């Protein structure tokens, strides 16, 4: 634990910058890839859940076209932040097997074109959110883009092994933005939904880092397993999962959701704790992989349960 506060910086000079294409042969799909479509899917889902959970959302509290616009802005705003991340991290992405085929390190899109695209999409999504939806949702979206694209990517990620812990806040904004789009304010439930994703992010990424720590090690990014060791990482995964479980059940315990969400949160969280305990006890990569896979299912299922609880679909 004593070396967790060490500030490390990736050896920028030691890594190769990917070559920019001589002529612009980028396919439009390469620009879609810059937006990290798989993460966009998670953003859309949690954003819709936050929107549906807001009071009055299903009783005409928001016009369907405005709701669609809000989700569209949220999706492209998150994508823009991902594109800024890909632009800045192009040097280390080229070194990791998992990220080497991304459009910039693969030489499909020039870095300057990627940055211009990202900044345009970010500005457009915030602008439309402000004028079509409301200023609070636009402000939160702008802050989330800045937090992920600049604060996390450019400052936090290469300096501290707590990068994922603090940076996790960036991905936690969508349900809060979805809620704010409907109500124009932020109350306890969206803050709890924020806290769920905030506490979910570290064990999710640490499980991946346990398996792919050699890849991260090549880049000099101070992921927890490389800096503090695998044993400490497994311990952290378990403790964060327990904390996540308590926060996930809180909306039901505080009477803000129905029994459907309560039961789903309890069962899903119990299974997540068992999965994290397996990682801690067996110390195998297979358990870490299972934990990583389950964490994705967990978040989708938890927010899916919230949507079911609110809408009554499937009941």
């Amino acid at each position: 634990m004593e070396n967790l506060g060490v500030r490390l910086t990736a050896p920028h000079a030691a890594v190769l910058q990917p070559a920019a294409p001589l002529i612009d042969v980028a396919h439009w799909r390469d620009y879609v890839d810059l937006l990290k479509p798989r993460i966009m899917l998670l953003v859309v889902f949690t954003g819709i859940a936050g929107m549906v959970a807001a009071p009055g959302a299903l009783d005409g509290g928001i016009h369907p076209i405005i709701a669609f616009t809000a989700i569209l802005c949220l999706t492209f705003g998150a994508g823009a932040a991902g594109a800024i991340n890909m632009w800045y991290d192009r040097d280390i992405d080229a070194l990791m097997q998992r990220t080497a085929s991304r459009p910039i390190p693969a030489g499909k899109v020039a870095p300057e074109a990627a940055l211009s695209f990202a900044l345009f999409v970010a500005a457009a999504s915030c602008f439309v959110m402000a004028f079509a939806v409301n200023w609070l949702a636009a402000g939160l979206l702008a802050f989330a883009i800045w937090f992920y694209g600049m604060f996390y990517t450019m400052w936090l990620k290469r300096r501290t092994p707590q990068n994922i812990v603090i940076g996790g806040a960036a991905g936690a904004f969508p349900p809060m933005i979805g809620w704010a789009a409907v109500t124009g304010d932020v109350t306890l439930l969206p803050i709890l939904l924020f806290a769920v994703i905030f506490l979910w992010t570290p064990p999710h990424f640490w499980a991946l880092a346990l398996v792919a720590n050699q890849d991260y090690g090549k880049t000099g990014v101070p992921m927890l397993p490389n800096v503090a060791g695998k044993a400490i990482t497994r311990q952290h995964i378990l403790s964060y999962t327990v904390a996540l479980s308590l926060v996930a059940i809180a909306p039901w315990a505080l009477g803000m959701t129905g029994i459907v969400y309560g039961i789903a949160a309890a069962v899903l969280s119990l299974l997540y704790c068992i999965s994290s305990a397996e990682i801690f006890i067996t110390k195998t990569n297979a358990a870490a992989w299972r934990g990583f896979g389950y964490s994705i299912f967990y978040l989708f299922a938890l927010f899916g349960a919230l949507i079911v609880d609110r809408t009554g679909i499937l009941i």
Partner: protein
Amino acid sequence: MTPEEKAAYYESRRGRNKAIGFSLAGVCVLFFLITLVKLGVM
């Protein structure tokens, strides 16, 4: 630029132009609908 590179360049540029065209058309429709909602027509 070889003929193959030139063909690839034109093909990718055509694809990007189409994507921009469709995106702009989508944005126009969206802005139109938002305006109708804000005016209380819908």
